């Protein structure tokens, strides 16, 4: 079955396993029509495993088919079969509650009985998927296809298929450099410059640090990339900051007039675009943190926000 992906939602599977000693009476397979040619990207699941899933972007048609295959010799009685496309935000401190910001439904079958394998094509046209899939510290945004076989008296049979959404941004028309003079009076004056304020994910940060005054004994200097994820709102705001990169820019103590180059490739780091406001639920921002360390291990730093965007790879 080339091109088709068989993915079982492991949580559900174990749940099913716990509920009854008996297996569900049928297998459900969800596949995409262009599964062979569509790009696959890794997705980290809750159990820590990484699987490859199909990649979409907003406004795409999501077309495929669902195959229901009853177990040999069993019939499946149902109150109807449907497929849903869900965009969910899951906040970990509010576990179990999903906020569906997108929910589309297609009825696949009217109530009846299934005796043999049956294939249902489905199509969601020009789906609006404004947000990207995201797996953060306190929040997860995911897209799933959910097939439900409704039954009377017994629990519904449900199957999920994850997919990833990434949205591309054209290069910004305005991309100013970041340039600033900072310091501690009579101790340290530096001027730093990053050539741009907006970077795509495979970009390179080019810049330089110019030392105007150095009266403290510096040991080294590094550039950090920090991600600030803030979830919730009001008093229930949770902010989580991660340092994704620590990149040593300078070793030793410079003297006045010295200028130190910066060249930091972003590709080795797992960045996402900047998310300003995702459905009023969370936002993700990136910062460049310039840290100077002196011989007594005191740290002097200056943090600057940068915007990260996803440039369509050619």
């Amino acid at each position, binding site marked *: 079955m080339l091109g088709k992906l068989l993915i079982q939602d492991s949580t559900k599977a174990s749940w099913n396993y716990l509920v009854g000693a008996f297996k569900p009476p049928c297998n459900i397979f969800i596949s995409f029509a262009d599964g062979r040619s569509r790009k696959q990207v890794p997705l980290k699941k809750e159990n820590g495993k990484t699987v490859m899933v199909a990649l979409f972007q907003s406004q795409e048609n999501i077309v495929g088919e669902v195959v229901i295959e009853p177990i040999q010799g069993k019939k499946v009685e149902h109150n109807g079969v449907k497929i849903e496309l869900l965009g969910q935000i899951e906040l970990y401190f509010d576990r179990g509650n999903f906020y569906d910001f997108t929910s589309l439904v297609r009825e696949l079958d009217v109530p009846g009985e299934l005796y043999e394998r049956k294939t249902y094509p489905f199509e969601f046209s020009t789906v609006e998927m404004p947000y990207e899939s995201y797996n953060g510290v306190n929040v997860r945004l995911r897209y799933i296809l959910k097939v439900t076989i409704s039954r009377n008296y017994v629990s519904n049979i449900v199957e999920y298929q994850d997919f990833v959404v990434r949205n591309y941004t054209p290069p910004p028309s305005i991309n100013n450099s970041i340039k600033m003079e900072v310091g501690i009076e009579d101790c340290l004056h530096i001027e730093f410059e990053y050539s741009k304020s907006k970077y795509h994910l495979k970009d390179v940060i080019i810049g330089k640090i110019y030392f105007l005054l150095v009266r403290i004994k510096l040991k080294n200097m590094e550039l950090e990339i920090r991600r600030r994820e803030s979830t919730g709102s009001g008093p229930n705001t949770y902010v989580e900051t991660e340092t994704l990169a620590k990149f040593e820019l300078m070793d030793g103590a410079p003297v006045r007039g010295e200028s130190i*180059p910066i060249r930091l490739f972003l590709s080795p780091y797992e960045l996402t675009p900047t998310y300003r406001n995702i459905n009023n639920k969370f936002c993700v921002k990136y910062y460049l943190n310039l840290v100077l360390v002196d011989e007594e291990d005191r740290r002097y730093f200056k943090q600057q926000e940068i915007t990260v965007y996803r440039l369509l790879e050619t």
Partner: protein
Amino acid sequence: MMLNGAEDEEKWLAEGIAGIQHNAFYMHRALDSNNLREALKYSAQMLSELRTSKLSPHKYYDLYMRAFDELRKLEIFFKDEGKHGVSVVDLYELVQHAGNILPRLYLLCTVGSVYIKSKEAPAKEVLKDLVEMCRGVQHPLRGLFLRSYLAQVSRDKLPDIGSEYEGDADTVMDAVEFVLQNFTEMNKLWVRMQHQGPGRLREKREKERNELRDLVGKNLHVLSQIEGVDLEMYKETVLPRVLEQVVNCKDDLSQYYLMDCIIQVFPDEYHLQTLETLLGACPQLQPTVDIKTVLSRLMDRLSNYAASSADVLPEFLQVEAFAKLSNAIGKVIEAQVDMPAVGAITLYVSLLTFTLRVHPDRLDYVDLVLGACVKKLSSIPKLDDSRATKQVVALLSAPLEKYNDIVTALTLSNYPRVMDHLDNGTNKVMAMVIIQSIMKNNTCISTVDKVEVLFELIKGLIKDTDGADVDELDEEDFKDEQNAVARLIHMLYNNEPEEMLKIICTVRKHTMAGGPKRLPFTVPSLVFSALRLIRQLQGQEGDIVGEEVPATPKKIFQLLNQIIEDLSNVPSPELALRLSLQCAEAANDCDLEHVAYEFFTQAFVLYEEEIADSKAQVTAIHLIIGTLQRMNVFGVENRDTLTHKATGYSARLLKKPDQCRAVYACSHLFWVDDQDGIKDGERVLLCLKRALRIANAAQQMANVARGSSGPVTLFVEILNKYLYFFEKGNQQITGAAIQGLIELINTEKQNDSATPDSASDAFLASTMRYIQFQRQKGGIMGEKFESIKL
């Protein structure tokens, strides 16, 4: 804690080496299995060992070399794309993902080297990027080694003319630019090292720093090896840029080393053509820089270059090398107010050496250098630094050695002025050097002007200098010095009598100021020098026609008279007496009776008034007798007066034997064995008889005083005189008289109180043998001797 410093360092080094070996092992495994990711990981970890701050430069170098060897293997792996499957461009990015800067940059340089070799990007761009990125390492030691690594891997990949990496137009410029930048940055790091760590370890740190200097200097060497660096580019770009860094770094260690480096690595021809620029930097250096050594080396190189081929000499003239060097030295001395005298003088010595080698014909240059030195010396108090003094001696000796001729030095007006600045001791040493030079080269000083200058130069030897501590004089040295001066006087000679007389007058003027201790040494030379002139004039007497000839023997004798008088005033009567007699003899030969008489008078006066010591009197009287005997200029009257005086003094000597000997010697005054010599036999006999009487008296006195008579020596001596005059035909001396004397001697010998004396016995025996011999010889003389009955 400090005690364990070295031990700890050994431990840290061992740990570092272990770290490198450990990671290198895994790196090799990765290389063998073509695993790029692992290779990068372990090589970065290996290179992290170089991040240590605990090692001294020496130990760090050890660590660096080990890492360096491993990086060579990595480079070979990088080159083979087939093994790792990543293009060199991607590789160039990939290594930049390393989080730590030092491993990152080592890897980047390594890949960069491969990148250039692949020619996928112009060499200049890769080089430019590398040298820029290396700015990230500001730690002096680590930065120096990193950049040193960069220099090492890029050396054979510079886009030089004729190199396979040569690109389009002007790429040599890129190569030069690259090396210059790396050089500049390395020097900055190197200079910065001195400010690190606590002040008390400064000395140690400077020593360690000095060990690293070749890492910096290597860049200059690379520059000099770049084919495309021609004179034009050297002049326009390389030198100004290097000098800019040298001057701006304001560090004495660095400035000294780099200046020296520039001089050593670039061709002489370049130096010659860029003298102005190079020298222009010198006054701008720190006052503590040993600029004199730097300039000395430069001048040495240039002099060698000049000596290498005559073809290059016009170049020196064209660029006015001397003027520029001279000017530069002046400026350096002016700029470095604190420079000790020795520094300044050393500079002048170097310049002088240069001048002597490059422009041996330009005495004016030599004089200029000396003049400049005088100017400098006048601005400081008297030299008391022995090293400085040594340098002045070197300065003054150089022209002497070069020209082998003091006459040349005498034309240098500043020469004596330099000497004025020496302390007394050194002044003398220098004067000796000059004299020795004259002696060695047998140089004749032939004009009065030169003599004047020469005496000005050696005046330290000629007279006491003010404030000189006489007590400290070493007798031995003093004698040597004065003997040297005495010898020197003989070298002052001109064949032309008039000039020679002037020379003599000059020498007299100077030597007479020498004081009582010097005159005894110098006057004899002067006197004999004058006597030589007299002999010369005497020889060419016929030629003297002019009426007012200044150089006549008479005049010279007058001069001599005064000289001797001065000497006798010293007082040095014995010497004066001897010289008077010499002069008298000369006057005799010149037929100047009055002059000769005058000198004799002087001699007698000296004898009477000044010579009191009896031994000295004996010697003196014999000298007088000997000289007088040979005089033939005197008329009877004068001669009588003088001989009378001589005999009179002889008889008045203190000891009887002395009296006796002097008296019998006087006998010769009356018998000159010449054709027309005086032959007064009677007075001869009188003298001898008188001598005999004195001898007798002496014997008696001895008997009375000591109970034994002395040896018969005196009698035998008188016998010999008898025999002499007998032989010469003095009629007054008869065989019988001789016979009587012999008998007297024999009687004396048999006398009980006679003291046996083998010497006198032998003397007598040989005298007797002589008589025997004459008798047997036959002929007239034989017959004559037959009359002596034995």
